[in-house]
């Protein structure tokens, strides 16, 4: 099989020293904990494709379309391998060969239901959604980076991610409920939504049940712009004392998600004031890439404030 775009990256595939430092930052690996889902594995597979040791099966192709494009692996790569650029090129090669698959790209539900409002087309920063000849929305699976912005704006819930890997709204709601329900009565509790691009901390691949239970739960939601206000409100319904949303600083978000997240939080603050909840219980914080200390500081001061406010009265 000809892979002309991939072929030009041969040196980079050799240059990857396979240290595996990309694991701890990869949301897919965090979700499955299989090494074969980590960025290093994708480079290994690409190497195999190039030298004919790996067949471009559906299984291989699916893996190459499964990447949230967060680029955290690139930021820590010992060899400076431009991972996502290589992946985009091989996706094009595979599509040219008629082998594109869904991966984590966004889809329109097979049974239709699209209102043709084009909200998903407008929100996509990656030009992955266009209007086709029959007025249907067409998804370019190479350009789609799986940020999920289109999922959250679709009024008819027609847009889905083929594989959400633990970051869909229902996944997050389940995790949230499980944590909030586990906290003792009267004890502070808060949900911290972290954008994978900027602020989600490195992997903790070990369990320590004796550790003192934390008063907050960090949930990775990929782009902060994906967070629907209902999900944030749901945290309060389940007993949370507060919700902190972290996102990229202005100008740094690749999907304009930080702007949407900020608007969501501001709207929610207004609603909370109207229903008698202190608006300070929901807060947006900018966390630049690679500054875990900023997030830790923000969480600490947010929790101090929540303790001062006490349990919500409504």
């Amino acid at each position, binding site marked *: 099989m000809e892979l002309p775009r991939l072929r030009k990256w041969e040196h980079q595939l050799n240059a990857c020293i396979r240290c*595996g430092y990309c694991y*701890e930052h990869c949301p897919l690996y965090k979700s499955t904990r299989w090494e074969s889902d980590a960025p290093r594995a994708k480079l290994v597979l690409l190497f195999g494709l190039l030298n004919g040791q790996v067949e471009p099966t559906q299984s291989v192709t699916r893996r190459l379309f499964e990447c949230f494009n967060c680029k955290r692996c690139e930021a820590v790569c010992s060899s400076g391998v431009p991972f996502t650029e290589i992946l985009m090129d091989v996706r094009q090669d595979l599509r040219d060969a008629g082998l594109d698959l869904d991966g984590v790209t966004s889809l329109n539900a097979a049974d239709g239901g699209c209102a043709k409002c084009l909200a998903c087309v407008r929100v996509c920063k990656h030009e992955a959604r266009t209007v086709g000849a029959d007025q249907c929305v067409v998804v370019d699976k190479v350009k789609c980076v799986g940020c999920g912005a289109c999922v959250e704006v679709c009024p008819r819930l027609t847009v889905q991610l083929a594989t959400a890997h633990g970051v869909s709204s229902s996944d997050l709601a389940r995790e949230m409920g499980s944590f909030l329900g586990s906290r003792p009565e009267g004890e502070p509790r808060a949900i911290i939504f972290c954008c994978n691009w900027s602020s989600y901390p490195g992997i903790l691949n070990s369990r320590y049940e004796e550790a003192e239970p934390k008063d907050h739960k960090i949930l990775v939601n990929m782009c902060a712009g994906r967070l629907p206000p209902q999900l944030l409100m749901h945290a309060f319904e389940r007993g949370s004392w507060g919700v902190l949303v972290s996102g990229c600083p202005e100008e740094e978000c690749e999907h304009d998600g930080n702007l949407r997240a900020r608007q969501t939080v501001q709207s929610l603050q207004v609603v909370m004031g109207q229903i008698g909840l202190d608006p300070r219980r929901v807060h947006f914080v900018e966390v630049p890439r690679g500054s875990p200390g900023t997030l830790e500081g923000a969480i600490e001061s947010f929790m101090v404030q929540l303790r001062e406010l006490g349990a919500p009265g409504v």
Partner: protein
Amino acid sequence: MSKPDIARLQTIVGPEHVKHDPADLYVYGSDSSVHRAMPDAVVRPGKVEEVQELLRYANESRIPVVPRGSGSGMCGQVVPIQGGIVLDTKRMNRILEINLADVYCRVEPGVIDDDLNKALKPHGVFYPATPASSRIATIGGEIANNASGVRSVKYGATRESVLGMKVVLADGSLVTLGARTRVEASGYQLERLFVGSEGTLGVLVEATLSFVRIPKYRAMGMVLFDSLDDAGEAIAAVMGKGVALSMLELVDSVAIRAVNTAMDLGLPEVDAILLVEADGMVKEAVEYEVEAARELCEKHGGKLTQLSYDPAERARIFLGRKKLFPALSKFSDTMVSTALADDMAVPYSRMAETARKIHEIAERNGVVMTAYGHCGSGCMHTKILMDTASSESWEGAQRAVAEIYEYVRSVGGTTSAEHGIGISKADAFKREKADSLDLMRAVKRAFDPNNILNPQKLFDAPRGWLTATDLRYVASR
């Protein structure tokens, strides 16, 4: 050797914890070394009983089992050279106990080193045998390879921190080795035998580790030398006088240029740099060791600069050393960094000579090598930079590796200081340990009579690392 029955594996660990798709197998067939081979299945047991049942089945059916942590080993230790089952330990990832009064902790093999230290930190203690890959390295992998890192000069390697362990043997039986006490006098210390055994004797399912107090003060500085020989003499003087440093790192001129070229860190362009660090609970005690090191280094032409106790400043000083590994990967557009001849140890008095010898051998064989490492422990790290698409480069690398190990052996050094032997260093290891190989084989037979546990590694690896397995590189000419 036989192939595993996938349905049987699925019954033992659950279908969701077995992989046998060729794509998964291809990925699990390599690590951070130059080697590659295909397993027949990957399994992820979650508890001891599952490991026991897996090994009982594999032993009865004569199926190879290769235990695997995070696959960050550099010598092919987890490359399944005879196929079989890769036993991924990452689901067994619980920190079981932190016992401050008795100064030990118990962990499962898949616990990540950094995670353990995160859990220990609030108690003011740390697990010190940390290698550079601690962010992903599992405790099981570290024990299997007797890993160590930049602070081994003071805190030793993994073996010094292992008090005891539980191990599943090839026949599925579970044994408890060592103790939870600081000392244990009697009998064969089998737990020490397992440290560095590279998964050839059993599958570790629990480790009891000691820890030490986090020092209150740390001081780090950079000593500049106009001559590599002077730096070598300073190393021998500092270590010979028993100066208690917590880090003593050598960075040679090739390494300095590599870091400055790739990252523009502005390291002083001298012939050699020594990074010195001392730590302790009392500032005066730290100062005492730093002063002792300064005095000895100055006597040998070194100049101590940038000494600091400030964590941010220390991190800045260490950045050049920390970024060396990635810098080497970006050294050239045509060469890549390969994990070959990467961690020999030599006597302190031979450090400078070894560094010079490495450059000489590299030049003669048409590859580029640098010399850096934890010289306080006698450990010299190198990487071979070469054009992996060229068969001539591979031949040159093969000659260079053989010559380097010949030299290391001639000066009383050892093949591996901290990365292990696996496949790529087995030729040198077998020559170095020639008169004890039969003993090692007898030990292996006693633990694993059917040779199912990580076969063909260490003393049993095929002759000639270059042809032992497929290589992981695209070799197009």
